């Protein structure tokens, strides 16, 4: 594995019963780059995302992270390896305040079975949590319950939760799903800022959205790798044009 590759999928296939969602996909993601996985509905984007982020193992094939194989590693071990993710469906702790959401996420990186100290006796966690909320633009909503935040704000909160483990690799599954144009702009700015400091893998349905900010694109179609390359390569790719314009081959 070359030194500038962070994550690599090697011959990954994933079946659900008789349905093959992903067919022998081999891709690698470069360090410090923003790579977007795109494709029409049902292309296998989310399946690839879930396999890469450890939500479920591939049926066949292997996943490598930095210099080791991580196929089948349990989900909860990912943040400690420096891999964080956000979900396609908003996924926060609704009855906890925004700051408590982030504090719990930060706490996961410390000793988990502290039974005897008070949870408020860790001021450094509280400070860090507030700083992270600041970073995603939610400092005003610190003490509101996460479930009462607007949709776009909840998604930003989720990014803050993902950042809590100080990830070297950030995986985002359709972070702008269901957002208003204004919220989308805020989120894309946020992602661009995050990508300056770490490797980002982004799953996105809307091709236009990622063209401007991606270093690399991966196009999936019917569970197979259709094309990969720079945004310019992809834009001039005839196969991709055909798939996105919905013409039959």
């Amino acid at each position, binding site marked *: 594995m070359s030194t500038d590759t962070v994550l690599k999928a090697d011959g990954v296939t994933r079946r659900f019963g008789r349905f093959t969602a992903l067919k022998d996909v081999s891709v690698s993601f470069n360090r410090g780059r923003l790579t977007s996985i795109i494709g029409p509905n049902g292309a296998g984007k989310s399946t690839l995302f879930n396999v890469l982020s450890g939500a479920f193992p591939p049926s066949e094939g292997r996943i490598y992270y930095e210099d080791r194989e991580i196929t089948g590693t*349990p*989900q*909860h*071990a*990912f*943040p*400690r390896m420096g891999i*964080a*993710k956000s*979900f396609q469906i908003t*996924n*926060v*702790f*609704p*009855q*906890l305040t925004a700051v*408590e959401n982030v*504090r*719990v*996420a930060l*706490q*996961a*990186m*410390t*000793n*988990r*079975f*502290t*039974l*005897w*100290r*008070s*949870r*408020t006796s*860790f001021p450094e966690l509280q400070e860090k949590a507030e700083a992270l909320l600041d970073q995603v633009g939610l400092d005003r909503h610190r003490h509101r319950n996460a479930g009462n935040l607007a949709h776009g704000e909840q998604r930003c909160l989720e990014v803050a*939760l*993902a950042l*809590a*483990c100080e990830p070297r690799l950030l995986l985002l599954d359709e972070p702008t799903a269901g957002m208003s144009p204004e919220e989308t702009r805020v989120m894309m700015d946020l992602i661009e800022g995050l990508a300056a400091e770490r490797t980002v893998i982004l799953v996105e349905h809307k091709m236009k959205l990622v063209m401007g900010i991606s270093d690399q694109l991966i196009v999936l179609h019917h569970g197979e790798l259709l094309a990969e390359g720079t945004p310019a390569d992809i834009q001039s790719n005839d196969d991709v044009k055909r798939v996105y314009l919905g013409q039959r081959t």
Partner: protein
Amino acid sequence: MATKNSRTERLATNDIPISGRRVAAALHAVARHRVLAVLVLLAIFPWLMPYKALAVDILLYGLFAMGFNLIFGYTGMLSFGHAAFFGTGAYATGIAMVHFNVPWFGAMALGLVIVAAVAAVIGLLATRTRGIYFAMVTLALGQLVYYAVYQMTELSGGENGLRGIQVSELSVLGVPVNLLDPVNKYYFMLAFIGPAIWVFSRILASPFGAVLEAIRENENRARACGYNVAQTKWVAFLLSGLFCGVAGSLSAIHLSIVPIESLHYHTSGLAVMMSLLGGMGTFFGPFIGAFVFLLLEDVITNITVHWQLFLGTLFVLFVLFLPKGIWGTLLERLGR
């Protein structure tokens, strides 16, 4: 516009009438010093009750429901098998005293070790499942313990229950204490239940308590944050079982017998009902639930033998109209 604003503001602050605000302030004070508040109340509690044995019952079942609430209210898993821990605690302590002449303190310690073992095994099997499956698995495993003890007639007394636990002269730190005196008995129980409440409060306030809430709120997110959800649930289950085991162990000394019903799923159901009546996921809820349930049972059985019909109806009404229970609703109404 300006006047309208000031009016809405005034409305907001005057929303709760003066007396209500005083109550709210008092409740806030209670919530802040919850351990102290409970201990003061518990110290004078027997004199507030129609008779003192009822006060002991409320304490014991309150502790039982509180332990259960760690899994149910705080971690979000509905168990129907917690009688296994209450009953095992009672039987193990009783059997050690009756058949092996172990002094009461040693018998209680032994009881807890055995409860820990039972909770560890049941927890390992049950926490792999979720939702309704978790409820069914805990119910089945709980009944398994019930029938196992039922069959051990030599040790457990079978369906007659375990009899002959001597509590008339227990040596407490070298001083003989007669637990047949209800006041002695009450304070003896309080000496265990008070510290248990304190420990429970510490656990809830700890980082571990925060993890439990996170799992209840969103298991997937907790996992993605880096928490080993399966392991955390197992530890919570074990702790929950231990608190219920302490309650069971004390109940053996309280009653000086152990009825086989203490292992039956009806007893598990009691913990569910008491938690829901008082307010699941609240600190005081289980004790308030135990108080209301046992007091009503006591009052209604004086009038009719069909007390379960009345309590059952009350329970259904609570689930339908006050799902947060008495304490949970109070907290909500008065705005924490």
